[in-house]
């Protein structure tokens, strides 16, 4: 309304705004703290857990939690705490890998579909429809049945299953932006199509992808754990959380700690990621609706 200049919101991107709000919100702060621990566990697990996660010691089997073994030991006498800490690497690697694959491929497909319209758009959209008609996990399971189990194959399978959710959003954004005033204006400058897309369409079309990826990461980690539980992921004796749950299943009645800790690790990681992702999304949308 008035001629007064609006406050310069661009100086603070949503990410930094969001980081500044962290200390005032205990839930957010807890989630961030927990993820920081997970991050350390991923990068250098030896800092947190000194025991060997793989070396078996039958004499120490199925010990309950104690000062020596914080989370107890499993049926082969391996330190559960150490296994949970070392297991973070697998879950995070598979989750991030799958989401990165899905985000990249999905953004590309969405951009191509949104820009081309016509036949190519039709083909891509229908393909996405077919892919998303199957539940994510079921589709990943089908893909793994072709490629065989293993970490890389699991990343690939989950990645493909997650493509539609990214492609759809990017396509819809591209569609709107390609018809926006500033793209039309840039066309009148005589810029080539490639320059136009890279400069004015792509940055806006993928603006939401990092947020979607964060939220998707939680889902991907659950998916990874679920498929590993079924034996489709990293093979024993690797300390993957889902695989640990599968092993613990048989001992739940006599040694609850073997299963509860990796289960808690999965649950808390996913909750923490979701809390941060949703909050980031709200901040982003709030800024856009201003």
């Amino acid at each position, binding site marked *: *309304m*008035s*001629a*007064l*200049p*609006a406050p*310069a*919101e*661009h100086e603070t991107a949503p990410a930094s705004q969001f980081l500044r709000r962290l200390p005032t919100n205990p839930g957010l702060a807890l989630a961030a703290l927990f993820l920081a621990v997970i991050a350390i566990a991923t990068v250098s697990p030896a800092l947190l857990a000194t025991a060997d996660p793989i070396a078996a010691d039958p004499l120490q089997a199925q010990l309950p939690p104690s000062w020596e073994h914080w989370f107890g030991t499993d049926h082969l006498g391996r330190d559960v705490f150490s296994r949970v800490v070392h297991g973070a690497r697998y879950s995070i690697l598979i989750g991030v890998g799958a989401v990165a694959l899905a985000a990249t491929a999905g953004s590309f497909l969405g951009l191509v579909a949104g820009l081309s319209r016509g036949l190519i758009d039709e083909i891509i959209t229908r393909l996405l429809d077919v892919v998303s008609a199957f539940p994510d996990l079921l589709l990943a399971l089908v893909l793994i049945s072709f490629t065989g189990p293993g970490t890389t194959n699991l990343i690939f399978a989950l990645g493909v299953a997650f493509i539609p959710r990214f492609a759809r959003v990017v396509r819809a954004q591209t569609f709107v932006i390609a018809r*926006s*005033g*500033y793209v*039309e*204006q*840039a*066309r*009148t*400058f*005589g*810029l*080539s*199509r490639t*320059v136009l897309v890279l*400069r*004015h369409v792509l*940055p*806006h079309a993928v603006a939401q992808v990092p947020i979607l990826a964060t939220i998707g990461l939680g889902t991907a980690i659950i998916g990874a754990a679920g498929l590993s539980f079924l034996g489709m992921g990293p093979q024993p004796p690797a300390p993957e959380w889902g695989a640990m749950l599968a092993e613990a299943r048989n001992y739940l009645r006599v040694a609850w700690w073997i299963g509860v800790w990796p289960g808690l690790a999965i649950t808390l990681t996913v909750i923490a990621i979701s809390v941060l992702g949703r909050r980031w999304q709200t901040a982003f949308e709030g800024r856009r609706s201003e």
Partner: protein
Amino acid sequence: MMPLVDIRDLTIAFPRGSQENRVVHGINLTIHEGETVALVGESGSGKSVTARALIGLSGAVVGASRFDIVGDGVLGFRERDWRRLRGSKIGFVLQDALVSLDPLRKVSQQLADAFGHPGYFVRRDVREESRALLHSVGIPDPERRLPQYPHQLSGGLRQRALIATAIARRPSLLIADEPTTALDATVQKQILDLFAERKQAGHTLLLISHDLAVVARLADRVLVMKQGKIVEEGPTKQILSEPAHPYTRRLLDAVPSASSRGFRLSPATQTEDNAPSLHATVVCQRLPLPPKRIDAAQRVLSASGLVKRYGGGFAVNNVSFELAAGEALGIVGESGSGKTTVAKIVLGLIEPDSGTVLVDGQPWSHRSEAKRRARRASMQLIAQDALSSFDPRYTVEKIVGESLDTVGVFGRDRRRRVIEVLDAVRLGATFLDRYPRELSGGQRQRVAIARAFAPRPKLLIADEPVSALDVSVQAQVLDLLAELQAASGTALLFISHDLGVIHHLTDRVLVMKDGRVVETGAVETVFASPTHSYTRALLDAVPALP
């Protein structure tokens, strides 16, 4: 006799955190029965929020030493009390009927709501009354309109239906907030005629408007508002012919018309959007604009036989025109007349179905984009909504600089040229790092103009460049455009629905209706002695200042 509305020392403030943001500073407002009072001001002057305060809908903290409406002291009114007042004693008409009417309810249902009988089924006696009401607001064949939905009505009928809902319970006072701003000129005239009829019949009206000409036709008394204060008040004739306050004077001077041709609309001393202070000296004499240099021998643009079909009909049907260097050609018409489609064809953003466009004598239409690309810098666009024509991630420097890509100006040279054009539009280098959202409406349009002039184009296409601006900002932008055009000798294709703007700025005019050119010629000739009935109707519909 007691006045209908008697308000003393009205203040309105919006709470902001622990502080208050005061938008109306102690105004007095009295409306007598049978009177038509107009509240005039630019956006942000506080006129709309004042109108809303009268029906308890301002959503702000309202204070006054006296606040009487239709005999009731409304200070300390609760929501329940206000509800009793709304509709029965005060009717309210908003700007845009399309958003003010519920799109999912039929006209008959909306009228029943207004009569105080809401529900899906409409009683027979209410239906009778509705028919009479629609008839009274000049809707022909009410029986056919009652079962229709708002989107099935034309803009004029919709606005009439909205007015009908506002007067259904015969309120003593009708408030109309910019009731014709969203309408085309000919439709605006119909609505103003309706208000005039009601005035004849002795109804009371409070008219809120930014348009002095609209006010001139209807109001008995005018209150001029600026920044939450009433700067001048008096009988309409006196205010419009001998304004005492410099702000009123400046508002009147800013209105483009036949008489302002060749002269500046705004005082020359301003550097920026900052309106001059209230105490500025009264500028009585108009300053002349620099003379244009028209080179009739140099044809910058020629279009012949342009046709564009959409769906079953024609968006553009056999349109031809030529434009010489330094000349300004206006295209005028109402919404849907095909003006913008012509602009897009000229810009090469859409291809005509038949017909050709020559730019600088060279073929332009039906060429591949790769062939056109190199020549695009010679042709620039100023869009209606400047904000949406800027990439929100770009600073002003990048926005303006981008038009220099195709002419190959980069690095230090580019920066120098960007500063040069920013200076030319009186923004200056301090604006280089600003983002579009930090700019006011006038500043945005200046940036758009700077960007258009940066690559020294031969042809400038301006599509409704001032229609979203306040009249005083519009005056500054039009002056700037005229100055720069004269200085650079650029040809200008200027599209507008506003005949005053066209008359003020352009040399020749094309009048369009339903995709066709109905009349063309020199502006003075066409507007002084129109030959086509549509041009006459259009000119006739424009409310004029005395």
